[in-house]
């Protein structure tokens, strides 16, 4: 079986992306899989802290500044069996603004890593770097919380992903004018993405077909974190429905993680919650989500050629 690259992202900070990625990693490792976590939050890395580790070298920064030539060398063991980590770097200013060639080199080396599961813990925001890491992975998981700010940022993140996918498709099929048209329409006329799709399909069937291919190949997953009541529980499913109708994508809802105050306590004591509180509802729902993804055929196929990034040096 080949390597599977997972990405955990989503617009807003504090939704629990690092919590979800570390827990996913811990659970997959407990299933006797060879798992490698990568802290791809270039602006504010702290995945190692969630695993009770200190920062130190080698880290991702050493690879990006050419101190080590192979990314594999940056992977260090964690206190947990079967789980390795590539820590983020403290040298933020240099690395956070990764240029295009460094990004392609990093993406290529990630694909060459020797592990069964590679989990990318992405940073906040919708910068090109974050989007490209998210799109190069399958499955890509968006973590949201039941608050308007988080929902708004999640939709923004998904919209940015869609625009990025469309841009890559348009480059692939050599129709650059369409991308400009899309940006103009959406920015100037304050037209919604859905409105733009509608007018595009009505104007030209060929464009509609490309759009359809692009959107069908983008299948992100959604986890609703810090759920407190019945109403929040339905929110994930409702979001998937809205995304299906207004973003025209198949947003795969993985389930909700109930709010648990003990997560905070575990963090304070530098103990992974997933290990110290194995029998909680929160840990259970992460296990379910991880297993649903790990054993599904749907997410085992490779990234379509249109959104495969060119090979960097």
């Amino acid at each position, binding site marked *: 079986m080949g390597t599977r690259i997972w990405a955990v992202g989503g617009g807003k900070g504090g939704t629990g992306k690092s919590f979800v990625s570390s827990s996913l990693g811990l659970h997959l490792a407990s299933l006797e899989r060879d798992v490698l976590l990568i802290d791809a939050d270039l602006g504010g890395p702290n995945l190692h802290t969630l695993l009770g580790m200190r920062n130190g070298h080698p880290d991702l920064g050493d690879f990006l500044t050419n101190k080590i030539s192979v990314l594999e060398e940056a992977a260090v063991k964690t206190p947990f069996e079967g789980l390795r980590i590539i820590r983020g770097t403290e040298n933020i200013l240099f690395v956070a603004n990764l240029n295009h060639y460094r990004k392609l080199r990093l993406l290529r080396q990630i694909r060459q890593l020797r592990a069964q599961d590679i989990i990318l813990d992405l940073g906040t925001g919708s910068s090109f770097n974050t989007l490209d890491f998210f799109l190069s992975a399958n499955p890509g998981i968006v973590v949201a919380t039941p608050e308007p700010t988080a929902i708004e940022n999640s939709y923004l993140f998904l919209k940015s992903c869609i625009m990025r996918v469309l841009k890559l498709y348009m480059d692939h099929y050599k129709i650059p004018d369409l991308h400009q048209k899309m940006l103009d329409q959406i920015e100037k006329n304050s037209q919604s993405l859905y409105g733009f799709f509608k007018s595009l399909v009505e104007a030209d069937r060929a464009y*509609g077909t490309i759009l359809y291919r692009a959107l069908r190949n983008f299948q992100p997953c959604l986890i609703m974190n810090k759920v407190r009541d019945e109403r929040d529980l339905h929110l994930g499913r409702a979001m998937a429905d809205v995304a299906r109708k207004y973003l025209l994508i198949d947003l795969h809802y993985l389930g909700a993680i109930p709010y648990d105050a003990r997560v905070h306590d575990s963090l304070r004591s530098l103990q992974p919650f997933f290990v110290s509180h194995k029998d909680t509802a929160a840990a259970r729902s992460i296990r379910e989500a991880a297993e649903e993804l790990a054993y599904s055929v749907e997410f085992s196929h490779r990234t379509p050629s249109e959104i495969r990034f060119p090979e960097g040096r």
Partner: protein
Amino acid sequence: MIKKIEDWNYYELLNVERTASREEISEAYQAALATYHPGSLAAYSLVTEEERRLITERIQEAYQTLRDPEKKKAYDMALLKRSFYYAPKAPFRKSVGKVEIEEAGQKRRFRDKVRRLLGRRKPAGDAP
């Protein structure tokens, strides 16, 4: 193909199977209404006021039809017919339409072919 909201059928709008029971349809209706409710979190920032109003109307319409067994039956039949109507045609399908049979030339028989090969005159009545 990409579907516009106007093209979603009632089952897709309410997010239920076509085999759903009345209770399931009623539950799905409540959920759909909540999803597109003015204060809904799920539609927050993505669905415009106009779009929200439109889809709420469509959801009401869908429920009014699907809750009534008579109307539901008629709607199901219409859906079925529509899907047959839009079924793609094979590009090289042999037509058996009445007009085309009448317009087609007489079928050549084996004997005619042999005659032609031997350079004999074409039989009378054969199409040019």
